[in-house]
């Protein structure tokens, strides 16, 4: 039977006489400090009834003594020592590698590289699974998502990326319109430039360029931050304390990139359409009003839905790849650089592969 900390008190002439009972320790403290604050002046503190005391308990006593000028009676030698300690405080013979024939080395490299690609793919899938499990544990334990960390990432992944993604998309819009117009002009069909810009931006290019940019800006940042935390043993420190790194580091980052991608993707599409519109107005003499009207006729709603379905998937992919590569860092600072590079390369490659898959998939659904 483990007794919680408690106290009873009796009022005297110069204030209450408080007598503590149970374990005056951090784990058993309960609401003792709050109740103690509610009492009026305290004249004496009796520690003879306590089973155990630690520094937190001793601190509560010291605090009360300092506030009320109370006397301590009945302290055991251990308690005495703790109180004394807190009293005046505050304030690493061969040099060369074996030489082998060129063919042997080439075969070796091809084999090693192939294995590395396979392991990486398995590793990312494995990591994704572990992340889902961590999410499940978090939900079951009814601990809330670290929203503060997520919102901080919104700033770095989303808001801070707005200028560069906007400018990039605007220019891409102009380039598509200009190149399209040159080809279509030969048939006298310049007006179809609008179809080209509108549909390509919303359905494919806006989001694809955004994903590449986010992978480059944020996927790499995730890998580098987490890699550095691994090097300085911060991640190990979290584990010994009992904080799950998946929960504290990975989930907020993946959540942020997943939620941010659709917003950034839509924003990028609009910027590309504006860029195309500006070229049509200046280069082809199509007034903005006509441009907008024509867009409304030719862009089907499912182009927008396709973008909304693809965006979070790309977000998860970029977040997971970045965090996975970061968590793979071992031993030295050089690894951080290597892992950051592979985070970006793997993320962009996987995004493009998935995008091709989506294109075929949605076409066979009849969403042309």
């Amino acid at each position, binding site marked *: 039977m483990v007794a919680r900390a408690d106290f009873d008190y009796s009022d005297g002439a110069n204030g209450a006489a408080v007598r503590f009972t149970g374990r005056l320790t*951090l784990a058993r403290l309960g609401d003792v400090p709050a109740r103690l604050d509610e009492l009026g002046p305290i004249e004496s503190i009796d520690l003879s009834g306590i089973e155990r005391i630690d520094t937190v308990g001793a601190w509560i006593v010291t605090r009360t003594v300092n506030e009320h000028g109370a006397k301590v009676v009945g302290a055991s030698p*251990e308690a005495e020592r703790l109180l004394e300690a807190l009293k005046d405080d505050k304030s690493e013979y061969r040099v060369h590698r074996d030489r082998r024939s060129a063919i042997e080395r080439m075969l070796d490299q091809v084999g090693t590289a192939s294995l590395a690609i396979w392991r990486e793919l398995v590793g990312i899938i494995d990591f994704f699974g572990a992340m889902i499990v961590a999410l499940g544990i978090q939900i079951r334990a009814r601990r809330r998502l670290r929203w503060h960390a997520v919102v901080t990432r919104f700033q770095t992944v989303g808001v801070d990326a707005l200028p560069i993604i906007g400018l990039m998309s605007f220019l891409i819009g102009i380039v598509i319109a200009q190149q399209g117009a040159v080809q279509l002009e030969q048939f006298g069909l310049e007006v179809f430039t609008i179809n080209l810009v509108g549909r390509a931006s919303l359905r494919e290019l806006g989001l694809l360029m955004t994903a590449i940019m986010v992978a480059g800006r944020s996927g790499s940042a995730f890998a580098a931050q987490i890699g550095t935390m691994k090097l300085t043993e911060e991640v190990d420190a979290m584990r010994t304390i*009992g904080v799950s790194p998946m929960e504290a580091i990975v989930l907020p980052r993946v959540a942020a990139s997943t939620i941010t991608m659709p917003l950034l993707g839509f924003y990028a599409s609009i910027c590309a359409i504006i860029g195309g519109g500006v070229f049509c107005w200046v280069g082809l003499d199509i007034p903005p009003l006509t441009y907008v009207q024509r867009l409304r006729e030719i862009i089907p709603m499912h182009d927008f839905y396709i973008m909304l379905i693809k965006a979070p998937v790309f977000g998860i992919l970029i977040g997971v790849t970045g965090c996975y590569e970061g968590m793979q860092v071992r031993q030295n600072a050089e690894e951080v650089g290597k892992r950051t590079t592979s985070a970006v390369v793997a993320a962009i490659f996987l995004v493009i592969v998935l995008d091709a898959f989506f294109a075929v998939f949605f076409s066979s659904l009849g969403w042309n």
Partner: protein
Amino acid sequence: MTDEIQAEIQEELAAAEAVRPEKFEFAIRIRGLKNQFGDAVIHENLDLDVRSGEILGIVGGSGTGKSVLLRSIVGLQTPTEGEIEVYGKTLDAITDQEESRDLRRRWGVMFQGGALFSTLSVAENIQVPLREYYPRLDQKLLDEIAAYKVSMVGLPPDAGPKFPAELSGGMVKRAGLARALALDPALLFLDEPTAGLDPIGAAKFDELIRELADTMGLTVFLITHDLDSLYATCDRVAVLAEKRVIAVGTIPELLATEHPWIQDYFNGPRGRAAASCKQAIERQDGKS
């Protein structure tokens, strides 16, 4: 009459306090531990007992796996074979998350480089374990706890709000120690606490560890290369060599063994210097 009863109760309570944490003669029991990385065997048939309330120093040449041993005990490294019990519980066998948290709450680990969370200030670092285990503590008490922990480890008063990057090596170690002590653990793991400190700083750190262990009744698992530290702080010393613990005992007991490594270690030039220094200090203390 009542005074006598009072005195008896006091004695009993003091006796109960003295064996804290009660029931366990050994804080850590390791039997037949084996650790292997690829083909490299680091530990084989390693046995070690750490008594409750003692400061046990772990010594051994570089690469004998002192840090690996620590990592195995705290669960960062799953042993290839063998059993490790901490307060009667085997970490690997615990499947219940709450139970493993309960065990983790009873130890504090101070890593070699401090391993302070770089995005948090010193005070916030100290509060991380407190917030994790006691989410209902109010901010005022959290701040007070952080403040007295900072003072207990001998950091200057303005250290609390500083970030780890702004601290010197010695201060980072003290801050790491403060975080390890945040939950008032019964068991403290220290990985080369005095490495990289100047001799004065190292001596102060030894004193601090001894003092904290005495005041708080701590069991300390101390990895060190520093002979002065061994003489100044440790109750017993365990020697790691040949992939196992070859000897455990007080320094005079170890000196009586004839193992060549132990003889080299304690009777080498540095070992003799540390020993004579200790004798000189004791002589002086005897005079005054």
